[in-house]
């Protein structure tokens, strides 16, 4: 399967790789939300960390990803898109937009779903830490084939 140029670009030059600290270091940091989704036995694990300022704006985001090139590109792209957005705006990002932007074929749609899940999980973590209500009814279809 041939990859789109955008997938190759994100693969070769991933944006915002890293973390604001190890999982134990960021566990109690109220300005950091962590989302880890997927599982090694499924062949994909995505970790997204967001740093949120006092106004609820995502000032920085970092990712790590174990998964195929499309999964790496999806999470790299996700960090670019959420930076500078408010947490509620970031929640609006749907996997279908990632699919369009990266021209992912149908078998790779679930990799974009994983990126959307990681955004939501990181924001939920941030909100929980800060005593905010988490809207758990995200009505999301887990059409993940792994």
């Amino acid at each position, binding site marked *: 399967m041939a990859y789109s140029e955008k997938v190759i670009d994100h*693969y070769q030059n991933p944006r915002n790789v890293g973390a604001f600290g190890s999982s*134990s270091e960021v566990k109690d940091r109220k300005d950091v939300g962590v989302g880890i989704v997927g599982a090694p*036995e*499924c062949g994909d694990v995505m970790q997204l960390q967001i740093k949120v300022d006092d106004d609820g704006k995502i000032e920085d985001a970092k990712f790590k990803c*174990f998964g195929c090139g499309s999964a790496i590109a999806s999470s790299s792209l996700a960090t670019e898109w959420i930076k500078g957005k408010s947490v509620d705006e970031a929640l609006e990002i749907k996997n279908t937009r990632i699919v369009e932007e990266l021209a992912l074929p149908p078998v790779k749609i679930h990799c974009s779903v994983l990126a959307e899940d990681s955004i939501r999980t990181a924001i939920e973590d941030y909100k929980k830490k800060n005593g905010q209500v988490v809207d758990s009814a995200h009505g999301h279809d887990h059409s993940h084939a792994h």
Partner: protein
Amino acid sequence: MNLPIYMDNASTTRTDPRVVEAMLPYFTETYGNSASRNHAFGWAAEKGVELAREQAASLIGAGPKEIVWTSGATESNNLAIKGAAQMYAKAPMGETGRGHIVTCIIEHKAVLDPCKRLEREGFDVTWLEPGADGVVTAEMVAGALREDTILVSIMWANNEIGTINDIPGIGAVCRERGVVFHTDATQWVGKMPTDVEKDNVDLMSWSGHKIYGPGGVGALYVRRRRPRVRLQAQIDGGGHERGMRSGTLNVPGIVGFGAACAICSEEMETERERLLALRLKLENELKSRMDVVEVNGHADRRLPHLTNISFGFVEGESLMMGIKDIACSSGSACTSASLEPSYVLKGLGLGDELAHSSLRLSLGRWSTEEEVDYAIDAIHKAVEHLRALSPLYDLHNEGIDITKIEWQTH
């Protein structure tokens, strides 16, 4: 050195130009039907086919009359397994208890699926599980045999991990118990010395395109004496191949198959030594440059030219993307249409992570040391790039065992 580099010879091989040379006249000059008994075109074609039969037989220590031409190893496996089961069935179609078959869970699909069909059709099948090293032993087979066992089918060498089963030993057990023994030797024949007499084989499949011959042509060895093995045909028609496989023969393909066998007979010894040295260099160099690099399957009982390596914390498809100049394959789920990881690596019982992180590299007749050196550097670089992105590698470096974490699985 030309890029891309081909390191997927277990999948298929380049046809040797000498083989192509041998085939060409049979398209445009000697184009008769080998079954045409009454004119020179037919005789010439038949002569080509019969020479090929001798070349194929001689590669495996058989007689020419013991070779049946097919379209490839898939067909050979189907003919051997279904043909023997139906011939030696203990009860007619439609009844249960038709007989017992022994095979293994990490066989090629071209063995698994015929066995599954026979299971639906009233035969009992024992699916042996090899240990973590992937090797099927004579003891495992002996332990599975029953009074009503009619057939054992165990591959000679595994196509994904290159492990070698104890075929002479398994054959001896079967011979002693009077059970027909088939081996799918697609990855073995032509690469390693084979003698159906010494190795106690009754039925053996192999394919042209894995031995630097053309695709779409294969052979089935069918033992004719001590004991004579009989098969029920799966393709009926004009009664070619002594009734075992009807259909006008693919004369150029068969001639090419024979030529490929002859070259293997001639060059196997030097080729396997050369490829073994290259494979060991590949494995050892990668293992010495990086941590958590595992060669899958038994350490020594393996084909010279094939390796299957897992690079911990790195997903196989993304790794292949990083080494796009190297044609190879991976057992990762992301590379398969079904999004399932390799059942062979899963079958070793070592956890799915191994499969997701695996790369199969298979060398061949034209592989060079320069290519191997290039591959080592490219793989090293790609693994480092991906480990810098891998959340699992971070956890590993923090001393956390990733198998102990409760992951949010889908």
